Every structure is written in C-alpha cells, then in structure tokens.
C-alpha cells in the first residue's frame, strides 16, 4: 500500500493513493514497519490528511491541506507546508501541528493538549472550546477566537478580531497587537511573572522572536460562571 519507503522514510503521493489508504497505513503499519518520517505530496486541499495519528513520527505535508488536517493528533509532529482549511488539529491531544501558511476557521478547536503553531493568520473561532492545548499564531486571528475556551493558551502575535475570548473559562490569551473587541466576560489583566515564563516558553517552542513584555493578558472575569438572580433575569 505504501508508495516508497527508504530507510524509515515514507513518501506518499495523494494523486496516486487516497487519504483513506494513507491514514490506514499511518494508523496500522507505520510503526510496525519502522517508519519515523512521512512526506505527503500533492495534498491539493484534501480533507482529513493525517488524522488520528498516535505515534512519535514526523509528517510533512507538501502543499495546501483541507479540513481537519492533523485532527486528534497524539505524539506526531505534523508540518503543513502551505495553508489549511477548517478545523486544523481539532481535538489535538499531544504532539505538534505546524502550519507554514494561513489557517481557516476553528483552528485547534476542542484540543486537550499539544501545540498548534500557525505561522501566518488564523481565521475566526481559532481555539474555540480549547481544553488544554496551546495555540501560537504568528499573525492575526479572526472573530470569536477562544470562545468558551476552558484550558490552555492562545498566543496571538498579530491582532485579534471581534469578541475575543467570549465566555472564557480558564484558558488564557496573550495578544501582542490590537484587539478589535473583547467578548462577554473577557477582560485584560496585568501580566504576572508566571505569564512571562509561560509565554516565553511558548514563543520559543513556536520559533517566534517576540518579547513577552509586548503582550497583553486576556482572561475570564468569571462573572458568567454562576447564574446571578440579582441581575433581575435580564438575560
């Protein structure tokens, strides 16, 4: 089923073999066959490339990928040398997914762990409902990013769109540029020593050379955690 294997390196052309075959191979045969590196050619925007990986392998996708690339990733280091469609690294558990280009909507949604790096911009709803993963965006993020994010960190080196951090729980957002507007219950807070340490470590892992001092911290004001009857049921 594999196309070319040389010294633990698999080369796979998606114009020749389907995503379904590729993912089957990566799930069932890659580790068994001693594969440590995978190169995927001609992704051409196909969906579901390299989803559900659970092995410490290095995957390079050479071109633009479609929806859900690197979804549910565990252990693998996946790099997309291009742009990605909706929901890159959705539900990521561990490992790294790196996008060299732009990401569409819902990047890193609902992730439990691991790191997603987007070198250019991410579109709206980046990090929606994240549950412990870290996301570092080299450019800007669109509206409603980190909506209902529960744990983890969203680092935005550029600007943020409307409604940033709406209904946040315990996730923390660091933004270097302008914020168009904060969402309900999100507030700017002073940076603490731990914030500088966490942010410096994330920037280093992501490979960005910004100063943590240039970032703002956004976190939940925690006013939406409980129903407050004193609000006269206004909402």
């Amino acid at each position, binding site marked *: 089923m594999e196309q070319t294997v040389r010294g633990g390196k698999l080369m796979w052309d998606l114009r020749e073999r389907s995503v379904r075959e590729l993912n089957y191979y990566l799930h069932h045969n890659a580790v068994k066959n001693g594969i440590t590196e995978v190169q995927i050619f001609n992704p*051409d*925007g*196909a969906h579901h490339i390299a989803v559900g990986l659970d092995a410490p392998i290095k995957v390079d996708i050479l*071109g*633009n990928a*479609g*929806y859900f690339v690197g979804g549910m990733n565990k252990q693998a280091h996946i790099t997309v040398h291009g*742009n990605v*469609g*909706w929901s890159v690294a959705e539900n990521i558990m561990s490992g790294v997914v790196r996008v060299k*280009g*732009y990401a*569409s*909507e819902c990047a890193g949604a609902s992730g439990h762990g691991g790191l997603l790096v987007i070198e250019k911009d991410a*579109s*709206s709803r980046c990090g929606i409902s994240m549950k412990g993963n870290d996301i570092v965006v080299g450019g800007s993020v*669109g*509206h*409603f990013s980190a909506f209902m994010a529960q744990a983890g960190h969203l680092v935005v080196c550029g600007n943020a769109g409307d409604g940033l951090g709406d209904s946040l729980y315990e996730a923390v957002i660091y933004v270097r540029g302008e914020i168009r507007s904060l969402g309900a219950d999100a507030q700017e807070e002073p940076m603490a020593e731990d914030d500088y340490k966490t942010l410096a470590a994330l920037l280093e892992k992501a490979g960005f050379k910004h100063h943590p001092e240039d970032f703002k911290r956004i976190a939940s004001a925690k006013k939406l955690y409980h129903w407050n009857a004193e609000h006269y049921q206004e909402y």
Partner: protein
Amino acid sequence: MCGIVGLLLKDPDKQDFLGEYGTEMLVGMATRGCDSAGLAAYTNEVSEEGVRKFSLYSSSDSIDWNALTKAMREDLDCEIDLKANYNHAVIVPYGPADIVWRWLFENCPEVHILSIGRSIEVYKDVGHPAEIAERYNLRGLSGSHLVGHTRMATESAVTWAHAHPFTVGEDFCLVHNGSLSNPHSLRRMLERKGIHFDTDNDTEAAARFLEWRLREGDDMETALKAAFRELDGFYTLLIGTNNELALVRDAFACKPAVVAENEGYVAIASEFRSLAHLPDVQNADVFEPMPEEIYVWNKQSVVAS
C-alpha cells in the same frame, strides 16, 4: 453542502480555457455532496444594438432546436445563431429582444429562458457536475469570467429550476452557499413592487433583491450593503455581472470561501481543493474573505492593468 466557484481571467491568453478551468473547479466541489449543478459563463459579447443572447432550457428531451430556430427565423424574419446541447441551447436572434422573448413565450411552452444578456450563457441541471459538464460541453466555453455552483438542497425542491446560478435581469447571476431565514418576507416586499418570482427558492430572493437594487441605481457595493441589512441568515454569495465578480460572506462567516489570486486570474471556491489544479496556484495569494467585507473584481480594470 453547496459549493460555489468563481473565476475571472485577467490574462486574455487564458480566456480560451475558461470552460476547462471552470469544469475542474465545479467537479472539485462535487465531494461536498450535490444533487444538481450549474455554471454561468461570460463569453464573447454581442455587439449589435438591441441584440441579446438567450440561454434556453427545454423541459422536453426531444426538442428539435433546429426546427425551433427555423420557425423563429421565418416568423420574425431575422438571422439566428444557434448552439444546441441536448435540452439546452444558446441562441442569438438578430432582432429585438422583447419580440424574441414574446415569440418564445407564445410558441414554445416547454422552453424556459435561463438567461438573457449580451454575454452570459447559463447551463444548469439535476445531476453530478461531471455529467452536466460532459452533457453541455462546458469545457468548450471561452470567455472572461464564470460563476458556478454545486447544490445540495436543504430547502425547496431538487429541479433544474432550483439549481444555481439564479439569473435575473440581464447578464446578472448569483450563487449561494448557506440558508436565508427571511426569504419569504423579502419575496413579499419585492412582489409588492411588481417583481415576479419563478421558484420558491431562498437564493432567488437574494438574487431578485440585489438585481432590484442595481436596477434602482445602486452600484454593486451599495447594493451589497443593503443586502447585509436585509438578508438574514448564513451565506456566502458570489455574483456575476457583465463586468464584475462580487463576493460576500455574512457577519459570522459561517459558510466557507477561499480566494486564490495571481497575475493570471482570481479564483474563488468554497474549498481550496477546487482551486488546486489551476495553473501556478502554488504561487497565488490564497486568502479567506472577511465577514461582511465586499470583494469586487472588475473585468475592465483587471485587463487594463
């Protein structure tokens, strides 16, 4: 899920390949699931005063287009160019457009007018885009720009008439991915102004609203700003006119769209995989249109530059 595609060729040398590129783009959207598909191409313009190009659909498969044009030629005493493809035909009668329209209405009840204009040609039907492209030789189309659509119906029937593009007025077409929640109130408002509807489809309401605004004197940008106020729902709209391609998404950008632009063309699709086979797309600027931003690409300004 519906899929939309649009292509405007900046490089005049590429215009012979409009249908070739457009077909690949349309077929690329088929994996979103589709029950019907359609394409509007802006081809060579009819230059004679008062003369229009008609795209026709026959609800009878056994129609004899040669006989129809012969009868029209004799009755109206005018030359007619005919390009027939199965139950579709494009005719250019060298006579007054309103008289041609009336003749078709009175003499050919099985024939429906898909579009009227100086350059637009429309093909749409139920089925897979690859079959539709083959049936109507879409690869053979040449011209400056096109708008295409693959439909997976989430409201109103699956028929050729409910397939996109929706055409109203002259040289105007619209395709839509999404769902409008107030098409009936829009329709009631427009019908009170004497505007007639052909179907119960929500996209037709958007098409007729925008064409009404343009006819009232709005430019595309002003018309689309009015649409942001009046259209309720989630949508990506792609609009074609004789000179322009326009693209908008709703305020929440709930429906996908991606644009690839380079020196040779601007190409729009719901997903990148429809753009993946375009020439030199690897070096194009690929970006996602912003919510409630208006993107208009103009044929003249592009060619002039």
